[in-house]
């Protein structure tokens, strides 16, 4: 493979990672809309489309494997491929969390929410912003933005703590809401994990730029 072709392959790889990121973001958005709107068909679509996301991730894994085997890359090229291997794993897992929310929506089966969804909606908004920023940082090779993603994770963790308290209080006040609130706890956990995955992606961006892998995610969750 000539260098020019290798460079083209790397450019395509980067674009594919961003596309996978956009797919994941869409999955999170649809899962939350399904939750808020009690839209079971939309939740089922989220569950179904997770398979496509998994296939895209494994395709990118294989592309990375071929690029490594055929080009024995070094330095920035090597770091890009290693970063992508890490990022696509995180994206696929973030997609699994969106799918998890979809499954909870199906389990709740259209029942009215057992507690207000404001905090969960805010968690989702921030987690999606973190994911978007992490991918922007990747595209622009921007470690400052990547570190900001790491800092933003603290805000999501704080929201997670608040949502936990709110839901536990609701369960204490109204024992009949225990099952519904427990499901919503799972939703909040999925959202918190999406924020963690975004932080992990941001760590890979710092590695890509500098060759050192920082540990940003010191979440207690």
């Amino acid at each position, binding site marked *: 493979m000539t260098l020019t072709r290798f460079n083209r392959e790397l450019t395509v790889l980067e674009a594919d990672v961003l596309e996978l990121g956009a797919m994941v973001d869409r999955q999170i958005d649809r899962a939350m809309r399904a939750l808020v709107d009690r839209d079971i068909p939309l939740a089922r679509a989220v569950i179904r489309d997770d398979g496509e996301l998994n296939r895209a991730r494994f395709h990118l894994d294989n592309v990375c494997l071929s690029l490594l085997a055929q080009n024995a890359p070094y*330095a*920035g090229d*090597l770091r890009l491929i290693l970063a992508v291997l890490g990022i696509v794993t995180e994206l696929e897992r973030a997609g699994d969390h969106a799918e998890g929310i979809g499954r909870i929506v199906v389990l709740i089966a259209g029942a009215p929410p057992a507690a207000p969804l404001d905090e969960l909606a805010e968690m989702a908004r921030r987690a999606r912003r973190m994911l978007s920023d992490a991918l922007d940082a990747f595209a622009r090779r921007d470690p400052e933005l990547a570190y900001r993603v790491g800092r933003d994770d603290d805000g999501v963790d704080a929201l997670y703590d608040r949502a936990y308290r709110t839901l536990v209080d609701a369960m204490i006040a109204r024992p009949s809401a225990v099952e519904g609130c427990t499901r919503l706890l799972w939703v909040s956990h999925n959202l918190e994990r999406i924020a963690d995955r975004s932080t992990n992606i941001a760590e890979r961006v710092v590695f890509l730029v500098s*060759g*050192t892998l920082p540990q940003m995610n010191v979440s207690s969750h």
Partner: protein
Amino acid sequence: MTQPHIDTPATPHWRPLSRSRASAATQGAVGAETDEITDAAIEAKEISLWYGSAQAIGDITLKIERHRVTALIGPSGCGKSTFLRCMNRMNDLIPSVRMTGELFLDDQNILDQSVDPVELRRVVGMVFQKPNPFPKSVYDNVAFGARINGYKGNYDELVQHALERAALWDEVKDKLHTSGLALSGGQQQRLCIARALAVNPQVILMDEPCSALDPIATQRIEDLMRELAEDYTIVVVTHNMQQAARVSDRTAFMLAREDRVGRLVEYGLTEQIFTAPRDQRTEAYITGRFG
């Protein structure tokens, strides 16, 4: 003259992964792990060299760590072979060569005119790109240097030991008195290494030692380099980036600019150079953007 800029890196947040070398596993060898060289076998201070009026290398300052493999890489014409040959004054053989700076082997400046280049080349042996056994028997090839030096010990033991260290004994023990030229290319190169080892050197310089060899023979030489690094200091010039990445503990990248003077651009642990070089020129070279 501008000094090459060589950063002293901060300790990486992550610990470099252990090098996965067969020899490291079997021999218990541990590669260099920090950027600081505390035990230098060779120390070059502002080495410059001219062929007539044309300067070939400029102001090279670096330490070669004892009992490690150090690779010199860079595009053709960057002066890496010239610098290698400074280390045993092979360049003295070329008329009109002039050098400045200091080059210490342990505590002695080997560029000092009082140093006998022939004695120096015993201590700092050399293996060349093309295997160059003498048109003599395998045995006599290995014994040659010792005879010149008036060695009084047991020659059979000396020859066997050197051939064993060069991982060639098992293949030639039944044909010690056949011509060295009858061996395969890879065997001839190991014979040359045995010949260098037989005079008990401290340092072995290798100038593209595998460029004429097939992949299997190359792998044997590379394995041998790792094993020999336990007892000898090895400096290897190579165009093969993967070879430098595989066998060396430290890598020096040299480059000649428009003035055609080869200078040191970056020198560091091989892991660092091949994963996260600090200089854009190193990055461009090892990722194949030029050279």
